[in-house]
């Protein structure tokens, strides 16, 4: 009998209806309640469970206790096994509760975890269990920039059913993104890449920052990797920015890659993983470095978001002809004509990188795209 996990972040979405643009932090949640907000998460989770009902007799449903899953599962006619975690008073659950439940479920050997929440919940899932374990988001939060959520709660249920029945569903690493809520309340949209989660994927059922392309993202990333490896000088070392597209390059070269970190590689060797600015500068003392970078997150930030290790000084010392920008055509199309951005914190360095740049989108395929300074 397959085990399915269910975690509901009971406060997800509470800020949305009352215009608070997010629900992170206890004080925001309290303000939301004071404004008359009603949490959305239980209803959302119930809609997903509705799709799962035909499987009720064939799966074992593990839930977090109380309003974190157990209550709604019972309401929907399931006979859940709640985890024996300490139960909070209603309205006082914390991110640590989500993380705890996620870890307990992977330990219990569930096949998939469904979690109802928003970007913050996805970030907690990713922090707790990384990207090796299949999970899928039921959209319930105010902000959903992350690509780990189904389009609707029902679709989350449908996709889970298909996955649990052993259907032909691919697993895909999807970006966990989050807005800086403080900045957002001031009207600035700044997202950052917080990590990745592994999700069962069906294009029409999953929310995606990217847009349909003829070839799958994996195939495109392979083609980009082939192009860049051909371009790489065998005697040089390269900084590899974060992202799945840069990781595909490392994979093609037979090397490991940290997903959210910056690594240094040659064509056939990993020299250093997850380096900071200081290590990069030290390496630059010894040998020249090139740079391969891809925009991460939804806004097309090339440098200055999620890869600050690649600092203005690093960029100045890597000459422009040794920089390769790579990007999936689907991500470029999703920018809707908006430019790529650099925001290194140093206007002089930003200027070096702005204008029209070549972006590798496939093997011997490039586009010319505008890069602007975000500062």
């Amino acid at each position, binding site marked *: 009998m397959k085990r399915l996990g269910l975690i509901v972040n009971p406060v997800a979405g509470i800020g949305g209806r009352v215009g608070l643009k997010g629900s992170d932090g206890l004080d925001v949640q309290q303000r939301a309640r004071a404004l008359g907000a009603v949490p959305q998460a239980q209803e959302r989770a119930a809609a997903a469970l509705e799709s799962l009902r035909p499987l009720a007799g064939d799966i074992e449903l593990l839930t977090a206790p109380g309003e974190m899953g157990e209550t709604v599962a019972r309401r929907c006619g399931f006979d859940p096994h709640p985890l024996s975690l300490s139960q909070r008073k209603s309205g006082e659950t914390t991110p640590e509760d989500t993380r705890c439940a996620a870890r307990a479920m992977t330990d219990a050997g569930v096949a998939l975890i469904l979690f109802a929440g928003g970007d913050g919940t996805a970030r907690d899932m990713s922090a707790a269990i990384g990207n090796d374990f299949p999970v899928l988001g039921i959209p319930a939060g105010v902000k959903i920039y992350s690509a780990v959520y189904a389009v609707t709660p029902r679709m989350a249920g449908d996709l889970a059913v298909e996955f649990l029945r052993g259907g032909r569903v691919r697993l895909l690493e999807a970006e966990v993104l989050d807005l800086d809520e403080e900045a957002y309340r001031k009207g600035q949209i700044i997202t950052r890449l917080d990590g990745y989660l592994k999700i069962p994927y*069906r294009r029409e059922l999953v929310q995606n920052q990217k*847009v*349909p392309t003829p070839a799958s993202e994996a195939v495109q990333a392979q083609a980009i990797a082939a192009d860049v490896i051909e371009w790489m000088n065998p005697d040089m070392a390269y900084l590899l920015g974060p992202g799945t597209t840069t990781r595909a390059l490392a994979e093609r070269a037979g090397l490991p890659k940290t997903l959210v970190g910056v690594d240094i590689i040659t064509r056939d060797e990993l020299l250093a993983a997850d380096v900071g600015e200081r290590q990069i500068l030290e390496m630059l003392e010894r040998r020249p470095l090139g740079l391969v970078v891809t925009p991460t997150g939804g806004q097309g930030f090339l440098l200055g978001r999620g890869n600050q290790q690649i600092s203005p000084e690093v960029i100045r010392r890597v000459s422009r002809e040794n920089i390769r920008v790579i990007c999936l055509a689907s991500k470029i*199309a999703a920018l809707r004509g908006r430019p790529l951005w650099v925001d290194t914190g140093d206007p002089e360095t930003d200027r070096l990188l702005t204008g*029209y740049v070549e972006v590798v989108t496939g093997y011997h*395929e490039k*586009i*010319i795209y505008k890069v602007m300074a975000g500062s």
Partner: protein
Amino acid sequence: MKPIAPKPMPRRFHQARWDEPVIFELSQPGQRGVLLPPVEAGIKQEVGNPAQALPEAVRRRKPPALPEMSQIHVLRHYARLSQENLGVDLNIDVGQGTCTMKHSPKVNDQLARTPKLTELHPLQDESTTQGILEVMYRLEGMLKEISGMDRVTLQPGAGSAAIYTNICMIRAYHASRGEDKKRDEVVTTIFSHPSNASAAKVAGYKVITLYPDEDGYPDLAALKAAVSRRTAALLITNPEDTGIFNPRIEEFVRAVHDTGGLCAYDQANANGILGITRAREAGFDACHFNLHKTFSTPHGCGGPATGASGVTDALAPFLPVPTVEFDGRKYYLDYCRPQSIGKTRPFYGVAPNIMRAYAWIMSLGADGLREVAEIAVLNNNYLMKRVLEIRGVSAPYAKGKRRIEQVRYSWEQLTQETGVRSEEIETRVADFGMHYWTSHHPYVVPEPMTLEPTESYSKADLDEYAAMLRHIAEEAYSNPEIIKTAPHNSTVHRTHHEPFDNPDEWAVTWRAYQRKTGQSLAPGPTPEERGE
């Protein structure tokens, strides 16, 4: 008397759904379509085994694995499949934007089917094929006039093949100047037909694609950043697939010429500019037409297509062989062209399509061609007005301006408000016996739909199509489930696209299907077991 009430819109429709097996699954060992009488002994003795007359190398060692079926079962199978089909003669075919689906007049089909044409063989002596050679020669002359080019070849078997022919001629041109190694890049735009990028890639070029500026025009500044001494060519469509004409096209051509590159004009979208603008005046070195689009011959599934490549004198030496020439007395094929790129297709062109296109142009005359363009543009702008009245749809770029012959619309607003996507509407459209396609990847225009009404459709046709879209949009807002679970009245099913780029998963032949899924039908008896 009471007036007869008009039929309600959208039209009610129900298509056949036969759940028909693949023909191989219908095979019954020993069944035959036609039983031939046994050969008389005397004849057998006289002729012997006719297979022995064939060279050993071309003789099959074992019979081909074809289905064995009686005639009536074959007929029934294909008649059923034909009922599960939708074609230009059956529906208001405006939904296949960029394809220029127009009516192919049946009289031209009749001409193409006369024994005078069908009984010709391409290897016949020229003295016996003067008629079709004259038609080819004269059609070349017409296309020269329409494009302003100096020569035109009718050899390519499709639009993509014509683009490929053009890029091969451009490559040969650079090679003749010793620059082919140096010039290894081709520039195109994201709203040009994807065939431009792919044909260049097949010819071995690196491809640089330009994205549009805020107004939807190809970005001139990006072009200037893209071109260099490495540029072999610019391959560009105009109007682009958005239906927007690039008013700076001359500047584009000049910027490429300034670096020594050449420019080829993809005129697949020529239907709205016939008799109005020409590739020559915009400075192009080469262009191509799809006879199966602008010149009304049937598309691929109705027979092979035809692409016509036009070039200036500078590229003419590189034309594929043979060219069709006239010496004042007779027409002949000229193979003696030492700089030719050779052949991009066997023989000289798809003769029945050349005949149809020739007849179509002759029936219209020069003024008629211009009228075609004007009506196509009028139809398109009328339909745009009707479509933009529908809730949830928009026409991105060039706000407030008219379009040429097609529009790439976006259902983005409807998707945001109802969750219904363009690909789902596409499936629902089939429930009304109509069609549109969404093959516009990557979706630079979100949730795209491209409509191209051509000159063939009446105002009532366009109203019917718009009424159907309006009905579906209303469903999206009131009852999205009906769209999400479509089709209800049509043959088509929903397909999952994910395996399409995985060679281990997709199968386009029965044999590959069996191999890749690890399944097979039980093998039939061998000829020996059948007593043959």
